[in-house]
C-alpha cells in the first residue's frame, strides 16, 4: 500500500512525524513468528541471567549468616544444602553456564564476528552442548 498523500494526511489533521503511522512494516509478532534456534537461545539468555537473582540472594544470605555466627550459619546452610537448596543451585549452575556461553556469543557478535544465520545457529548449538557438559562436569567435581 502506498503511503497516504500529503493532502490526505493534512485532511486527517496528522503531522509530518507520523505520516506513515499504521502503514509501516511491523516487527514480526511473537505469536505468529516461527520459533527458531536463534530466537529460543536468545530469550533463554535473558531468562537464565535474570533467574540468577535467586541463587545470588541465597549466596549473599549464606555469607551474611557465616559472618553473624554459628546459629545463623546453621539456618542458612540447612536451606542451601536441603533437597530444595540442591534443586535451586543445580538449576542455577545450568543457568549460569548457559548464560556464560550466551554471553560469550554476545561478545563475539559485538566484535563483528559470526553474525550470519548459519554461524549464529551453530553457536546456539554449541552453547547448549557446552552448558550441559559444564553442568555435568560441575556436578561431578563438586
Amino acid at each position: 500500500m502506498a503511503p497516504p498523500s500529503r493532502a490526505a494526511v493534512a485532511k486527517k489533521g496528522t503531522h509530518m512525524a507520523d505520516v506513515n503511522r499504521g502503514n509501516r512494516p511491523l516487527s514480526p509478532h511473537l505469536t505468529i513468528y516461527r520459533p527458531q534456534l536463534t530466537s529460543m537461545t536468545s530469550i533463554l539468555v535473558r531468562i537464565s541471567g535474570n533467574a540468577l537473582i535467586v541463587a545470588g540472594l541465597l549466596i549473599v544470605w549464606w555469607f551474611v549468616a557465616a559472618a553473624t555466627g554459628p546459629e545463623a550459619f546453621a539456618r542458612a546452610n540447612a536451606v542451601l544444602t536441603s533437597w530444595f537448596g540442591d534443586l535451586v543451585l543445580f538449576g542455577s549452575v545450568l543457568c549460569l553456564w548457559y548464560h556464560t556461553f550466551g554471553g560469550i556469543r554476545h561478545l563475539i557478535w559485538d566484535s563483528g564476528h559470526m553474525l550470519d544465520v548459519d554461524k549464529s545457529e551453530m553457536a546456539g548449538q554449541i552453547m547448549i552442548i557446552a552448558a550441559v557438559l559444564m553442568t555435568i562436569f560441575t556436578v561431578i567435581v563438586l
Partner: protein
Amino acid sequence: MAFLTDRKRAVGMGSAKTGTEHHWQMMVTSVALLVLIPFFVFTFGAILGAPYEEVIAYYQRPFPAVVAILTMLVGWLHFRHGVQTLIEDYVHGLARKVVIIVMICVSYSAAAFAIFAIVRIAL
C-alpha cells in the same frame, strides 16, 4: 498543541543518551565475570556443605575471599545493568522508574552485604 512545530514535538523524545555507557559496562563486567565465575563456582562449591569452622577458616584465606568479593561486586553490578534492560522492555511509565530504582537498590545492597560479610569473616 497546534502551535507546536514537528521538530518541537520530537525534541527530547530520543534516547536517554546513556546507551553507550550501559553497553560498555555490560561488556567490561562480562569479560571480568568470564574469569571470576569459574573460580567462584569451584571455590564456593568446594566449601558449601562444610561445617561452620571450616567455612570460616576457608574464607580467611586470601584467594577464596578475594574471588568471592570480586564476584559479588562485579556480579551484582552486571545484574544491575542487565535487569534494567529487562525492565525497560516490559514495564512502562512510572512503574518502570520505580522498578528500576528498586532493583538498583537491591543490587547494591546485596553486593554491600556480601562484601561486608566476607571481609568480616576474613579479618
